[in-house]
C-alpha cells in the first residue's frame, strides 16, 4: 500500500487541532481503557476460581461477591473508557480504522452482540452467585469465555488496522473482491502479553483492596492478611509471565532494545519488587499507571513506525484549526470531567471507608465538590445555549 492511497483515504476535512494532541489523548485514554479491561478480566477470572472455594471457605465467602462486583463495574467502565481511544484513532488514523472495520465488518457486528450477550450473562452469574454461595459457575465461565472472545475480536481489529501492506490482498485475494467481512488476523504473542497483564492487575488490586479495608473494624485481621498475601502471590507470578511474554513480543518485532521497550522492562522489574514487598500498594498502583502509559505508548510507536515507513505521518495531517470546539472539549474534559469525577470518586472512597450511612452533607470536601460540579454544569448549559443562539442569529437573520 503506497502513501498516495493512504493519503486518499484520509478525511479531506483535515483534523481540528494539532495531531500530536490527539496522539497524546489516544495514549492516555487507551491506557485507562486497558486498565479496566485487565481489571475486569482478572477479577472475573479469579471470581470463577473463587466460586469453587466460596462454599466452605469463610474468606472467599466475603471476597468472591466483591470480585464479581468489581468485574461487573469494570466492564461498564471499560466500555465507556473505550469510546475515547476509538474516537481519537478515527481522527488521526482514519484510513486504518475504516479499512479494518470494512474488512472485518462481520466481526464488528459479532463483537457488539458478543459484548451484549456476554455482559447480560455476567449479570446472570452475579445474581446466581448472590442467591446461592458458589452459584452460577457454568454461566460465569460461559460469560467469561464470551467476553474474552470479544476481546480477541478487538485484538483482530487492532492487528488488521496496522497491516496496510496486506489490505489489498485481504480485500481482493488474487484479484477477486471479497466483501464477506470475515477478515481475521491475530498476533498471538502480542495478545498473550496483553491478556497476561490481567494477572498482575488483579494482584495489585487485591493488595489495594486489603489495604483499603484494613481500616474497617468489620473485616477481620485474618481476612486482611489473606487477601494481601494472595495479591502478592498473584501479582508476582503475573508480572513474571507478563515480563516474559513482553520480551518475546519485542524480540519478534525487533524492538527489544528500543529505549521505550527498555523503560517498560525496568518498570516491570520495579513493579515486581514493589509487589513483592507490598509496603504501600497505592504507590505501586501509581507506578502501574506509568507502566500502563508506557505500554500504550509502545503500541502507538509500533503503529506510528509502520505508517511512517509507508509515507503516512499523522504529523502531516492537514490541520483546520477549530479553536472554539477544542476549547469546549478541553475545558469540559478538565474542568467539568475533572471536578465531577473527583466528586463521585471522593464520595465512593468515603462511603467505602464508612460503616453505616455516610453523611456527605457534613463532609466539607464532598459538599464543596458537589456544589462546584452542579455550578459548573449549569454554567456549561448557559454557555451552550448562548453560543448556539448567537451562531443561529448570525447565520439566519
Amino acid at each position, binding site marked *: 500500500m503506497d502513501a498516495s*492511497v493512504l493519503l486518499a*483515504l484520509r478525511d*479531506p*476535512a*483535515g483534523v*481540528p*487541532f494539532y495531531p500530536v494532541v490527539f496522539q497524546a*489523548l489516544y495514549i492516555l485514554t487507551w491506557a485507562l481503557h486497558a486498565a479496566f479491561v485487565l481489571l475486569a478480566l482478572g477479577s472475573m477470572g479469579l471470581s470463577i476460581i473463587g466460586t469453587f472455594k466460596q462454599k466452605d471457605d469463610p474468606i472467599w465467602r466475603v471476597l468472591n461477591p466483591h470480585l464479581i462486583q468489581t468485574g461487573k*463495574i469494570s466492564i*461498564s*467502565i471499560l466500555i*465507556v*473508557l473505550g*469510546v*475515547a481511544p476509538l*474516537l481519537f484513532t478515527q481522527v488521526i488514523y482514519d484510513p486504518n480504522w475504516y479499512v479494518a472495520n470494512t474488512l472485518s465488518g462481520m466481526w464488528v457486528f459479532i463483537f457488539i452482540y458478543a459484548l451484549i450477550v456476554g455482559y447480560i450473562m455476567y449479570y446472570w452469574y452475579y445474581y446466581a452467585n448472590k442467591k446461592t454461595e458458589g452459584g452460577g459457575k457454568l454461566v460465569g465461565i460461559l460469560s467469561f469465555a464470551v467476553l474474552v472472545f470479544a476481546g480477541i475480536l478487538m485484538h483482530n481489529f487492532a492487528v488488521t488496522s496496522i497491516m496496510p501492506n496486506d489490505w*489489498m490482498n485481504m480485500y481482493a485475494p488474487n*484479484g*477477486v*473482491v471479497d466483501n464477506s467481512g470475515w477478515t481475521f488476523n491475530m498476533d498471538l504473542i502480542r495478545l498473550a502479553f496483553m491478556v497476561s497483564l490481567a494477572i498482575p492487575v488483579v494482584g495489585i488490586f487485591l493488595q489495594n483492596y486489603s489495604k483499603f479495608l484494613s481500616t474497617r473494624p468489620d473485616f477481620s485481621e485474618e481476612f486482611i492478611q489473606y487477601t494481601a498475601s494472595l495479591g502478592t502471590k498473584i501479582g508476582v507470578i503475573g508480572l513474571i509471565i507478563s515480563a516474559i511474554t513482553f520480551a518475546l513480543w519485542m524480540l519478534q518485532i525487533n524492538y527489544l532494545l528500543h529505549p521505550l521497550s527498555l523503560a517498560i522492562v525496568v518498570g516491570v522489574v520495579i513493579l515486581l519488587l514493589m509487589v513483592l514487598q507490598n509496603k504501600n500498594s497505592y504507590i505501586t498502583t501509581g507506578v502501574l499507571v506509568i507502566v500502563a502509559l508506557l505500554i500504550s505508548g509502545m503500541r502507538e510507536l509500533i503503529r506510528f513506525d509502520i505508517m511512517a515507513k509507508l509515507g503516512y505521518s499523522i504529523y502531516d495531517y*492537514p490541520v483546520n484549526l*477549530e479553536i*472554539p*470546539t*477544542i476549547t*469546549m*472539549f478541553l475545558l*469540559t*474534559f478538565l474542568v*467539568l*470531567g475533572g471536578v*465531577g*469525577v473527583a*466528586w*463521585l*470518586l471522593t*464520595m465512593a472512597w468515603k*462511603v467505602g471507608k464508612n460503616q453505616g*450511612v*455516610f*453523611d*456527605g*452533607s*457534613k463532609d466539607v470536601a*464532598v*459538599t464543596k465538590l*458537589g*456544589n462546584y*460540579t*452542579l455550578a459548573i*454544569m449549569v454554567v*456549561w*448549559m448557559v454557555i*451552550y445555549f448562548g*453560543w448556539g443562539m448567537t*451562531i*443561529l442569529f*448570525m*447565520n*439566519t437573520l
Partner: protein
Amino acid sequence: MGWATEWVFFVYEVIGVFVLVYFIDKIDKKTHLKLTFSFAIASVGTLALIIGIISFMMWPGTEAYYATGSASDAFFGTNTFPHMFLRIGFMIMLSGVIGLVISSAMKKENPELSRELTKKMGYVSLLGGFLTLFFFMWYMGTLPDNAHAVFNVTKADVIQSRIILTIVFSLYFLIAIVKPQFISTPLAGIMIFVILIAGIWPGEKLRESMRKPYVAGQYIYSNQIISRDVEGKGIKSELPIIAEKGLLQVNPFVPENLKVITEANKLEAGKLLTRMSCSNCHSLEATGKYRPLKDRLKGMDKEAIKSTLYAMGDGAFPYMPKLKLPEEEYDAIAEYIVSLKY
C-alpha cells in the same frame, strides 16, 4: 470534538449511575439528591451534544458551514434546537411512562402515595407529550427538501400511526390522572414496550432514511462519495473527477485486473461498481431485504436499466445520489444487473 465532549458527560453518567444506585441507602438524602440533579443535567448535556451532531448529519441548516467550515456553524443549524426540544419533550414523557410502572407497583404497600404519584406522572407525561408533538411539527419544518422527498413516500402512513399513538397515549395519561387506580404495573410495563416499538423505533428509522442520499452534512453521499465543495474546509467535490475518469480509476480499493473494463472482465467490474455505488442502501441479492434493487428494476432490460442510471446521474431522484459515471461503467453496471435476472 463534539463526540469527545459528549464522552466526558458519558463517563460522568456511567460512574454516576453506579454511585446513584449503590449508595441509595449508604449516603444522606441531601447528597443523594444533589447527585441525582447532576446526573439529570449530565444526561441533558449528552443530549445537547449528540443532537448538534445528528442535526448536522441531516444538514448544516444554513450555508454558513460550507463557507467557514466552522464546527459551530455545522453544529448549531436551524434544525438543532427544534430537534433538541422534541427529544426533551419525549424525555419528559418517557420519564412519566416509566414512573407509572414504579408508582403502580407501590399500590399495595402505600396506596395513598401510589395514587398521588400516578396522578403526577399522568400530568408530567401529558406535558411531555404535548411538547413532543409541538416540537415535532416545528422540527419537520426545519428539514431540507431531500428529507421531505423521502418523507412524502410514507407520509400518509406515518401521520396516521402518529395520530393513533397520540390518542392512545393521551387516553392512557388521562386515565392516570382521573382514575389512577386503573393503572396496573403490567399495563404500565406494556406501555413502555408500545412506545419503544411504535414510537422510538420508527421515529429513528424515519430520521435515518430522511437523510438520504447523504450520510452527513449534505456533502457526503451514503456511498461515501463527496458530492459538493466545502470551501471552508478545503473539501472538493469528487463528482467531476468520477464523471470523467470513472469509479474504477478513482477508488483506491479496486484490484489491478478490474481498473480497465474489457469484454472479459465486464461482468466482474459491473459487480464491483454496483456494490460500490448501490449496496450501501440497496440489497443486490434477489433475496435481499433492504430496499432491494429487484423491486425497483424488476423485468427491466439492459437499455431500461441504463436509462434509469442516466436519469439518476442527472439528478432525477432527489433522494438518490447524483452520480454520473462514464458510459462504459454505466454499461458494465447495467450488464451486471441484467445478469442477476430480477
